[in-house]
């Protein structure tokens, strides 16, 4: 191994070691799907499976740059979050990297957020050149991508907690913060309603939902 390679691998090991390393090699309780430790394990599983990385916004220069752009756009009247809202209330995905609001504790709320955002990473890897441009350019495609990602969250919540979204949740989806016109918002809500209807029948079809199902099966078999 060359010296630069050694230095980089050493630095990378030091930096990544604590992020996705399994906390224990002992098999955990096969019926525990909802404890904080189990949900953290699921998050690691999803990151490994979909080649994504979850991190916090913190003092990320990139996130601050995006927040500044959002602040300017919000001042100009666009239907997007302000700088502070963007940094403290919204999760954001850039390519395969998921940025969560700083200080979000491990647990159900964080996992549900991750389920949605990982859906964007899946869409990115599916069409890495097309997806970012289409998401930015077209409100209709944005509605499609957002409802697709939200479907992963719905299916995951159903498989883990037996929960389905409420009517208010569907009618409020994408109302704010996505710079979409009314027809596109309606499209997203209809897609979500269809997804929730299928999920209620036990149909799991999104990549994230299928991954949650596989993780659950692996856990039941004592493989995780």
């Amino acid at each position, binding site marked *: 191994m060359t010296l630069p390679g050694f230095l980089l691998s050493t630095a990378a090991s030091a930096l990544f070691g604590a992020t996705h390393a399994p906390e224990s090699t002992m098999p955990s309780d096969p019926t525990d799907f909802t404890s904080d430790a189990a949900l953290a394990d699921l998050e690691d599983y999803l990151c490994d499976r979909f080649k994504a990385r979850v991190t916090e916004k913190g003092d990320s220069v*990139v996130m601050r740059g995006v927040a500044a752009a959002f602040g300017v756009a919000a001042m100009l009247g666009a239907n997007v979050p302000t700088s502070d809202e963007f940094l403290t209330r919204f999760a954001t995905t850039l390519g395969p990297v998921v940025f969560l609001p700083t200080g979000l504790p491990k647990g159900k709320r964080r996992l549900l957020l991750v389920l949605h955002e990982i859906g964007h990473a899946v869409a990115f890897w599916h069409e890495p050149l097309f997806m970012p441009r289409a998401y930015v350019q077209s409100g209709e495609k944005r509605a499609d991508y957002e409802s697709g990602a939200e479907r992963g969250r719905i299916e995951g919540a159903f498989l883990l907690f037996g929960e389905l979204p409420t009517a208010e949740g569907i009618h409020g989806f994408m109302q704010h913060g996505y710079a979409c016109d009314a027809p596109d918002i309606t499209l997203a809500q209809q897609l979500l309603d269809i997804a929730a209807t299928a999920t209620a029948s*036990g149909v799991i079809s999104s990549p994230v939902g299928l991954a949650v199902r596989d993780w659950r099966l692996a856990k039941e078999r004592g493989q995780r």
Partner: protein
Amino acid sequence: MLKLILWGVANPLEFGAIFASAIAIVRGIYAVITRLVAPYPRLRAVVEGFAALGPDVLRFALQLARAITGRAIPSPALDSRDAELASLRAKLGELEGLRAEVLRLRAVLVAPRPLAVTLGDEVVLGRETIAPPDTIDPERFDRFDPTQTRRSERGSVDLRSLALLACTLGALGSAGVLCMGCPASAQLTRPALGDVDGCEPRTTRCAPNGRPQVCSGSRRWTDADQVCALAVQVAAVCCLTTSPITGAELHACVLADRCIDRDGGL
């Protein structure tokens, strides 16, 4: 490597700092090695060749310091380029000295001499008379001598060079035309949305392949799910049903007993 890239995207400042520090250390080691192999030109060329593959952080720092201070900060002589630069600077200094000497001598030689004025209007310049040139023979320029080369004459062109230039430009042009005809990536060229279908916005349907769809505001059918028959967990069909969440009637992948009777199911 993928994790390293992902981490680099997430933490660009830290990644840049670690990367620059690592390169600076490697460059420092390289500076020692290149001095050790200085007496062996081939070995030195090999070492410097490998070093040229990476960014030169130390040289960047040196140039940055020169830019900030405005002073010619001496280089730490990292490789043969610095030695060559030092040698060239020394030679340049010698040339500057020679130039100054030439200017001094020319000033002495062409210094104006005092005019010698005699009586009357006769003025004699203080230099020797220059002999007039020979007269031009017109016939000499009317003859064409094919043995004489004209390469050195401005505006002339060598036919072989012209042919070579034309062939090169033609080949480049042909390559460009061929490249323009190459199929570009579909990801880069296809529009964000497909063709307009002309459907009624907000309506839903089961597509012929058994996939639920929604008509968008731009009158395009948008896929709302997979082909229902492909669902592996349950025996789902695509049909008109009532949403258990909102109560809306829509087409979705559901169990057959949840279909509304007036719509069959695919």
